[in-house]
């Protein structure tokens, strides 16, 4: 990536340690962490069989704290070293309030505490960093209240919804999208632990990790056919950490289905591929190793070069280097993928010249 091309990194995982949340939690929820040792529920039977679990082995904080938990170290290893213009924080999905299968009161409290911590320790401390509103979406009305509470913060740019086993296009969740649209917030979807094998877990991690894009495809299909973007015309959605090479297939498949079966979803007024082009963006990471010819072929198949946005996924093990992950593209296209596409997508990210 040439130095003259600015970067909006659309997926950076900051990590909270539960002890840090205590000052932002009221009782009794504080007590449940402090004395009862609450931890986020996890479902996968495997660990991530890399060198250091979910994180880059070289991203562990020198004093032993987990990767992503220290702003100064992130500045040194990522933001200053690469020269980020902007970065979007997406949390570590721990806690992941919307992933909890019960005890939604705790989830609501955790979401608020996390947002306050994120603003306090990250967004207010580095001008390059922008944030995600965490909500407990199962309790829709509380989620809307939380969006109303922190969504007006100038550096909150999206509402984060995890991809697990809830399909977010269901009309029950539409008030969340209404609140997001009202505050110029986009929807960021990031997988947590979607059970990609027919509601169950594949035998091996490598199977699950290979099939994560299918979980992203399900959500895009669900949001479009449930008419979310017809109902909320100013809403956008970015699919985070699912890659992008499946986009042409989705566009072709949904358009063909729409031509045959539109009868069932009369609220959809446009071809699904046109809805995607206007409303949906995809992070490039984790990028397959494409050569320039194959990469350009995909862009041609998408029919637009404005749908994909670069992301590093720092500090996770499948980090994409801005210097090495994509083939050497022409400068104009590079600028779109590394900067302009994301900047144009998020209404609250300023123009660099105005900073």
């Amino acid at each position, binding site marked *: 990536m040439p130095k003259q091309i600015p970067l909006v990194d659309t997926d950076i995982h900051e990590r909270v340690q539960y002890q840090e949340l205590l000052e932002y939690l009221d009782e009794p929820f504080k007590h449940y962490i402090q004395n009862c040792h609450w931890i986020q529920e996890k479902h996968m039977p495997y660990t991530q069989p*890399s060198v250091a679990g979910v994180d880059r*082995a070289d991203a562990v904080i020198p004093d032993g704290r987990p990767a992503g938990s220290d702003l100064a170290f992130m500045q040194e290893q990522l933001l200053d070293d690469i020269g980020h213009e902007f970065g979007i924080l997406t949390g570590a999905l721990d806690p992941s309030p919307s992933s909890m299968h019960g005890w939604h009161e705790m989830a609501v409290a955790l979401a608020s505490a996390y947002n306050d911590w994120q603003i306090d320790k990250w967004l207010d401390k580095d001008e390059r960093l922008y944030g995600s509103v965490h909500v407990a979406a199962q309790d829709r009305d509380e989620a809307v209240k939380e969006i109303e509470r922190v969504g007006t913060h100038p550096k909150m740019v999206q509402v984060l919804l995890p991809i697990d086993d809830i399909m977010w296009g269901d009309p029950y969740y539409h008030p969340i999208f209404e609140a997001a649209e009202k505050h110029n917030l986009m929807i960021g979807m990031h997988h947590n632990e979607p059970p990609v094998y027919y509601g169950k877990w594949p035998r091996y991690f490598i199977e699950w990790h290979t099939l994560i894009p299918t979980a992203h495809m399900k959500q895009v299909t669900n949001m479009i056919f449930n008419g979310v973007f017809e109902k909320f015309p100013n809403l956008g959605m970015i699919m985070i950490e699912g890659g992008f090479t499946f986009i042409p297939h989705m566009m072709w498949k949904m358009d063909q289905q729409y031509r045959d079966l539109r009868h069932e979803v009369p609220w959809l007024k446009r071809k699904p591929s046109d809805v995607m082009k206007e409303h949906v963006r995809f992070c490039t990471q984790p990028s397959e190793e494409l050569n320039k010819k194959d990469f350009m072929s995909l862009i041609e198949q998408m029919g637009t070069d404005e749908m994909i946005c670069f992301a590093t996924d720092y500090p996770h093990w499948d980090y994409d280097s801005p210097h090495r992950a994509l083939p050497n593209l022409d400068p104009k296209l590079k600028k779109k993928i590394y900067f302009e596409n994301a900047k144009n997508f998020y209404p609250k990210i300023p123009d660099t010249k105005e900073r």
Partner: protein
Amino acid sequence: MKEQVVCKTTDIQPGEMMESYFGKQNVLICRTPDGEFYAFMNQCNHQGAPLHRGMICGATTDQSEPGEYHYCHKGEILRCPWHGREFDIKNEGRMLANPDKKIPSFNIRIEDEKVIVYK
């Protein structure tokens, strides 16, 4: 012939590694459990990760039937700190998943306690 002392033999225990410099080139010196030394470019050939921040470990061999694990080559496999790609230290730094790819290596010899990289 260019050569340089990059470290002492006592700096690295068997099964460990360290980074050093050969001129301006950042190099990785590995010592396998049999006491042998190897020198590689300290950069993953995938996305450029600093290999000395990874780990030296063993590998699950490909001589396995489905469902079988055999952990072998302990101390002879270098794994990248980012994507976990595995390189066989004793087989020219070749990648286990694709032996056509390898980490560039350097000549190395030991004189007394000096570890010398040369070309």
